[in-house]
Structure formats: C-alpha cells, structure tokens
C-alpha cells in the first residue's frame, strides 16, 4: 500500500532522511515515533507527494509518487486524508464549510448529501454543535479534530496523521485514538500516525517504528518495542534525558546501527510466534 525505499532527503544542508525504508500494508496502522525535527513529518510529506526525495522511491497505492504530476497526482491525493499538526483549516470558512470543501470542490453531490456527510464526520469528532464557528473561535484541540473530520470526509483509503493528539486534553486524545482504531477495525483504512505521545502510540496499537538518523531504528508491535533492549528505543519510550538519542546528530550519523543485532527491523520477517525477539 505504502512503500518507501532508500529515501534520502536533505533540507537546508541537513540530512533529514538517510536511506529510509518502510513498508506499510493494506489496512495496517503504523505509528512513527521520534524526536522533534527528526523527519517524521517529512516522511508523511513524501508519502503524499508534498516533498520529493533526493534519492529513493515512494510508492503509494501502486503508484510511483515521485513520478506523478498534475492531474495524476491530484487523483492519487484524493484517495488520501491528511491531518496536519494544527488542523490547517481555512480561517475565513466555518467548520462545516471547511469540512465540506473537498466535496464541494471535486464532487457534484446534492447539497443534502454534502450536509449529511459533513454532519456525520463532525459528529464522529464530537464537533457537530460547533459547525457554524470559525477556526479562530475554537480551541487548538477542536481545530485539530475539525482537521481530522475534513481528512475523513472523502472516505479515504489512507489517512496520515501528523501529531494527532499533541495539545489535546486526555479525553479528546482518547477520542482520536478510538477513532483511529475504529477506522482500522471497521473500515480497514491504512493509517500512518506520527506522534510523540507514547500512551497514544500504545493505545493505537498496530506497529510502532522509531525514526532516528533518517532511517527506521526499530519497528515492531507495542510489546516488542517495550521489551527491546535497544537503548535508543528505551530512552525514547521512557523519556530519559541521557542516552543515544540525546547525542549530537553528527555523532549519530557515524553510529546509525542499533547495538542489538536482534532489535526488530522493518525488513526483518516476524518470528514464528509473531513476536520479534528484543
């Protein structure tokens, strides 16, 4: 469904992605963890064609995103929903208009159907009663939920989430996590979630990947990630100040491999019992 292979990207002279290889199957939910500025959002941007890799390939829904342009790229993007960090709602429109925008711009649907679909997705994120408000009149968390409603209104096959729970209260976070799980379980939507929020990562389940030094440092189920001996993973999930992730990235580039040879990797097949040995 989504395949990134040996993706390299340098921004402002800094190597952000350094041979990133990642494969996400149909209906799978992958949570990407990593420190700020490590390239998580850049990875999402490559998947949706907002950024082109310097080297490597990005295939989404059996299409080569790097080679797509114009109408073909727009057609692919219509099959993908994207939740931006702050919702990225248009300020001059109210929430209902924002959510309805992709439908009104692309599909010739009767007004009643548009209204019905907007109501449905806004009620999913519990914002139905605020649909007449503008983004400037609601909180950051509500904006994010409205952004999620907009990402879902087209019934996409893939949904990409950029920090879906950051800045949300615990109840709203749980709501988003539940929604992500519902989309996975009921509709089989393929999802990629970028987050710092460990509790959210565990609640969402699926596979968890740690991005470090421009590539996947470790990948596995929540249990595998929790039990791995990789000090970088342990440092991140326990939020320790000292550890390999705290060192200068220039030093990291010289030490890109995890110390444990058995640490779960994206390319490695799962163990016979479905669990990779930490």
């Amino acid at each position: 469904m989504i395949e990134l292979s040996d993706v390299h990207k340098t921004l402002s002279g800094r190597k952000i992605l350094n041979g990133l290889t990642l494969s996400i199957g149909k209906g799978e939910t992958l949570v990407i963890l990593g420190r700020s500025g490590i390239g998580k959002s850049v990875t999402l941007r490559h998947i949706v064609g907002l950024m082109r890799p310097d080297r490597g390939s990005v295939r989404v829904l059996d299409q080569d995103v790097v080679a797509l342009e114009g109408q073909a790229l727009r057609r692919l993007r219509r099959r993908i929903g994207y939740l931006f960090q702050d919702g990225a709602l248009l300020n001059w429109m109210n929430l209902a208009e924002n959510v309805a925008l992709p439908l009104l711009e692309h599909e010739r649907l009767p007004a009643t159907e548009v209204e019905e679909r907007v109501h449905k997705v806004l009620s999913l994120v519990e914002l139905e009663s605020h649909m007449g408000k503008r983004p400037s009149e609601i909180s950051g968390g509500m904006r994010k939920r409205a952004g999620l409603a907009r990402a879902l209104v087209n019934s996409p096959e893939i949904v990409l989430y950029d920090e879906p729970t950051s800045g949300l209260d615990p109840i709203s976070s749980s709501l988003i996590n539940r929604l992500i799980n519902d989309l996975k379980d009921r509709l089989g939507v393929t999802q990629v979630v970028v987050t710092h929020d460990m509790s959210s990562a565990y609640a969402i389940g699926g596979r968890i990947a740690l991005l470090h030094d421009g590539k996947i440092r470790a990948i596995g189920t929540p249990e595998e990630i929790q039990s791995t001996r990789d000090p970088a993973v342990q440092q991140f999930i326990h939020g320790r100040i000292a550890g390999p992730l705290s060192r200068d990235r220039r030093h990291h580039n010289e030490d890109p491999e995890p110390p444990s040879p058995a640490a779960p990797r994206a390319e490695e097949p799962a163990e016979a019992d479905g669990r990779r040995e930490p």
Partner: protein
Amino acid sequence: MSAIGSLGAPFLGPIRGLGRFIADSAEHAGYGVMLLVQAIAALPHAFRRRRIRDIRTLLFAYSTGALPVTIVVSVFTGMILALNGGISLKDFGQENMIGRVVAVSMIREMGPFMTALILAASIGSGIAAEIGTMKVSEEIDALEVMSISPLRFLVLPRLIALALVCPMMTVFAGLLGITGGMLVSEFQIGVSPTTFQNDAIGVLEELDLFTGLLKSFVNGVVIAIVGCTQGLLTTGGATGVGTAARRAVVVSFLLIIILGYYITWIFFR
C-alpha cells in the same frame, strides 16, 4: 588562507547579502511571471459557480476596503492640482484652462497611479499577509493534499477581482478628483464650474480614457500577482509574513511606476 579569509571577512557580508538579494529577486520575478502565465491559462476555471461567488465576495471586500481612503485622497489630489495649477495659470491670465490641467492629470496619470498605490498598500499587502499566513500554517499544503489548486482557488479570484476593482476605483477616483478640483477652482481661483467642465470635457480624448483604464487594469494585475507571489513564497513564520507584506507593497510600487511610464510612452510619444 585563514589570514586572507579574515582580511576579506568584512567585505564578504555585504557581498553575500547582495548576492542573496539578487538571487531572491530573480526567483520572485520568475515565480511571479510563471504565476501570471498559469493564471491566464487557468482563466476558464474562473467561470465555475463557486469561483464566481468567491470573486464577487472579493470584489465587494476590496472595493469597500479601499473606498474611504480613495475618496479622501482623490478629492484632495484634485484640489491640490487645481490650487497649484490655478495660481500659476492666473499669473498668465489663463486660469480658465484649469479644467484641462486637472482632468488630464487625473484621468491619464494621477487617478490610475493614486488608486494603484492605495490598493497596493491596503489590498496587495493584505493578500501577501493572508496567503503568507496560510503558507506558514500549512493551509496551502492542506489545499494541495485535498487536490485543490491554490492557483485556481486563491490566486485566480484575487487576480480577477483586483483587475476589475482597480479600473472601477480609478474611474471613481478620477471623477472625485475632478470634482475636488472644480470646487477649488470656483472658490479659490474664481473659475465657474461651467467653464471648468467645458474646458475639461473639450480637451479629454478617448485615448486619455483608454490609457487611464489600461494602466489601472495592468496595475490591478500587478498588485494581485505580486501579493500572491510574495504570499506563496513566504517562509519563516510571523517575521516572514511581515516581510512578504512589506515586499508586496515595495515591489508593486516600483512596477506600477515603471509600467505607468512605459504605457504613457507607448501611447503618447
């Protein structure tokens, strides 16, 4: 090598700055031209019902937004022209010719120029700030991801609205300026409104009206394209938005005055 480097260091800063300025200017100019070409190619999309509604909304917002300033500036410009011109002409006993001075100045040059400056400062900078804010808050990316072309959705309606508002405001400013000049002529110079009107109407030609409208149309296009270009090329958060708004005004001013000269030169040389 290091000694040479340290000797050259004080001079490298300004040279680097100049190099960056030239590279930035070339990038912005190229981007602006491409944006204009793409917007012209996308013109048929402006006739979609949703875009027509957007254009109507912007037309109203831009014209009402700039109206109060335009009224004050154009009336007083006409009054200043009449006062200065009238006093000078009176020395030669030619004050009856004040109508043509005010009318030709307002219709051919001052009206389009003044209106364009007002629109560039009030609307052009606003467009740059609005689109710049959208850029830094990922709204432009969100449009792209939703397969909504920012060119058709944002640039095209603003371009058409300003290309229409600018000539309309110019005609309005011209009429107000002439009225202001007529009032000063009567009360300060002693020229009757009838004499003023006859002289003004007698000297104005179709070419004056045409060039005035052409200039204002071009100015409207320039303000919209420069505003959108600066907005879409915004980087660096709130500071970047401020820079984009400032650049939009400065670049528009320069282009308005340079293009104004060449249009006059083409038609009146």
